[in-house]
């Protein structure tokens, strides 16, 4: 496995205070990693640190050579006074090839929306267009910041399935932040829980295997969602070793 992004002992500061301390993180080619954590735990900050938007105050971040990142931001508010078709939107800021655009819209699951107005898309369609935009970069890694925010559970599940399909087709790694502490994409190889530092790390439990959770999530999710169970003893223990090591 080759590493795409490696962060070592990284601390990040935002708005004058240290949001993340001493984070070690690595994501490899083709891997799916989900980050969960409460509000203000530094999830988005971590992403911004990893893509190089913020410089770490301690530690290092290294990206693989000529790494191509497809980034889907947390939210994109398009003012209703701005008339914009999907086609025009994808052509900002650089003109793109027609076939490339069609391919990206196909992969993202919105093949027939090129001429739709952005303001008339549903939440799920909008996120897919954002995904198509990220795919245009032919990314080695897709980074999604709370991409399913504002979608209901079946909408999230459908979006996660789309991501999985894209991953299988392109083989890109996926790094995403989930706004839900407990529900994550079933296909995640690893789940990282963040709270100013890395609390704990683990693998998700497949929802499909647990009937009681299937009842909770409904059957419409077709196994796209999974549960991440937090082991808080482990969390504190981990915290300790962390403190000792410095």
């Amino acid at each position, binding site marked *: 496995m080759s590493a795409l992004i490696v962060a070592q002992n990284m601390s990040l500061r935002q708005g004058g205070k240290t949001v993340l301390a001493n984070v070690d993180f690595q994501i490899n080619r083709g891997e799916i990693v989900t980050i969960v954590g409460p509000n203000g735990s530094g999830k988005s900050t971590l992403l911004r640190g990893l*893509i190089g938007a913020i410089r770490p105050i301690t530690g290092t971040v290294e990206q693989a050579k000529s790494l191509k990142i497809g980034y889907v*931001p947390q939210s994109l508010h398009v003012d209703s006074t*701005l008339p914009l*078709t999907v086609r025009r939107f994808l052509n900002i800021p650089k003109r793109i090839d027609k076939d490339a655009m069609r391919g990206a819209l196909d992969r993202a699951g919105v093949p027939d929306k090129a001429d739709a107005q952005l303001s008339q898309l549903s939440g799920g369609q909008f996120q897919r267009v954002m995904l198509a935009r990220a795919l245009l970069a032919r990314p080695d890694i897709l980074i999604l910041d709370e991409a399913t925010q504002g979608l209901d559970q079946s909408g999230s599940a459908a979006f996660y399935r789309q991501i999985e399909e894209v991953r299988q087709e392109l083989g890109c790694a996926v790094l995403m932040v989930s706004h839900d502490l407990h529900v994550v994409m079933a296909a995640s190889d690893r789940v990282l829980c963040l709270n100013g530092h890395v609390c704990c790390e683990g693998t998700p439990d497949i929802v499909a295997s647990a009937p009681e959770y299937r009842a909770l999530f409904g059957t419409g999710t077709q196994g796209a969602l999974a549960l991440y169970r937090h082991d808080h003893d482990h969390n504190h223990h981990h915290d300790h070793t962390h403190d000792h090591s410095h």
Partner: protein
Amino acid sequence: MLDDFIVRAALAGVGVSLAAAPLGCFVVWRRMAYFGDATAHAALLGVALALALDGPVIVGVLAVALVVGVSVSMLSDRGLGADTILGVLAHGLLAVGLLVISLTSDTRVDIMGFLVGDILSVSKAELGLVWLGAISVTALMIWRWNALLSVTLNPDLARASGINTRAEQLVLTLSLAVVVAVAIKVVGALLISALLIIPAAAARPLSRTPEAMAMIAAVIGVGCALGGLGAAFHWDTQTGPTIIALAALAFVITHLARAALRR
């Protein structure tokens, strides 16, 4: 032909409307209406300055509009761009400008002309400056169009594609200052931001792309400038307010038409 004051007025109106259209779209999309007001009202201070120093009004206005525009955009960069602060600036600057004019100049100065414009008295030299400014702003808008759109959509995404968001903000501030300087003669300090916003807003229901909106706004703006001039001549009304009233009427018509078509 340029010896006819009505021809000069018409050409000045057309020039200013053309430059105001693309910039006005950005003012609408980026919700900079108050920002435009603050810059336009600051123009009165520029007038006062020019009168006191006996210099050309257009230069005084350009200088002050630029200083105020840059300061305000720096303030809003620091998170001080709240509605209230811009409102205080916009109206405070208007009041102070009027105060300074009445304190420093004699009573023969036509304050009303600076407030609502005096398009019928545009000289050949002023007409030249209007078109120079209009062409510069339009060229700048076309050159930076995609980058400006990108920044308007999302600064983070723009930065990710290597766009300098501060530089693009400066492009808008500079263009705004130039438009204010050339438009003060045409519609006056009070109505400059109306000339920016209303044609763009009127074009919105008729447009599917940003480019279409800018072009339709230009057509509406030019139509209102010419129509307003004619109407003002016919009914002997103030030209600036007539142009803006016509634009407001266009806004009502396009929005009603859109609402009717949707049913």
